């Protein structure tokens, strides 16, 4: 592997992911909305957000939060980590001048019938003491040096967790 990447043999349940702290500005919110082609005014128009939506400012949109979580996960896994599934629930909004903090923990490590190694993650996005978004993710990691989850296709790629 020419690029540094995490392998599953170095991961165990309970391992924490490094925190990521980001200062949110109006540019963060507007860039995220434009990047996800979300033209709704509450993500770029202060007057609309405050007077029509009754919130304190423009706020981060859902698709861009997914992109932030993806970046947070791949910062940890390196480029060989392949996202299989992500589930999130937004509880509150993220506004300019907030400091958003991403945290995560390894919930489980397993190998499926196709031989792919999966890591289940519990993740949160917080502002201050408040969790604004909770997220769970299922990520394929190389089992060891030389493995590459991106090469998996068809029956070899099973991003849905097996039924209990």
């Amino acid at each position, binding site marked *: 592997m020419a690029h540094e990447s995490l392998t599953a043999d170095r991961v165990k349940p309970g391992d924490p992911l490094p925190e990521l702290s980001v200062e949110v500005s109006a540019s963060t919110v507007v860039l995220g909305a434009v990047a996800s082609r979300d033209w709704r005014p509450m993500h770029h128009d202060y007057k609309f957000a405050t007077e029509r939506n009754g919130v304190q400012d423009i706020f981060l949109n859902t698709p861009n939060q997914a992109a932030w979580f993806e970046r947070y996960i791949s910062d940890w896994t390196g480029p060989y980590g*392949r996202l299989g599934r992500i589930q999130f629930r937004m509880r509150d909004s993220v506004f300019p001048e907030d400091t958003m903090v991403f945290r995560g923990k390894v919930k489980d490590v397993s190998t499926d019938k196709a031989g792919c190694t999966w890591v289940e993650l519990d993740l949160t996005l917080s502002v201050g003491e408040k969790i604004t978004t909770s997220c769970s993710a299922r990520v394929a990691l190389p089992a060891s040096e030389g493995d590459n989850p991106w090469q998996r296709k068809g029956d070899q790629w099973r991003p849905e967790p097996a039924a209990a």
Partner: protein
Amino acid sequence: MSDLPDEVKEWIGQERYETEGEFDVERGYVFTTCASVENGNPIFWDEKAANEITDGFIAPPSMISVWFRPHHWAPNRSEQALPLQVHFDLKQKLGLPEAVMTDNTITFGDPVRPGDRLRTWQVLRSVSEPKTTKLGAGRFWVIDVVYVNQRGDWVGTETYTGFGYRKEN
């Protein structure tokens, strides 16, 4: 679900609103998205790394719905297209004027690559019995949005859980 309108019962499991993206997957939007979240993953920026790891450049998986969001303006279009039409159909048909999305799950299949032209359709999976929450009285529903590429290969599915409701007076 005996009190659901027959038309809504027929929607369950039916593939509806199949449509093709308005434009090809392209790297400009990949860069804009990566820049918006400061994502330096080399598979999106470095051709050598992309060739070695993902057999060429791909788009970030979380961008899957980006390729279907309508332009803010387009010639000869009089109405704003709605990206999750089944959700709005349910609100209208069930007489539930308010709605929130409570959960969003995205499952990723084959990587999406620059030059791909994706297709999508929506499937209503379920509608709950009437429920009352602190928001009001209504129903929960689950909608899948399925995405495939121009070869018909599955590239992902978004699953939304919505709650349509009427505010308590």
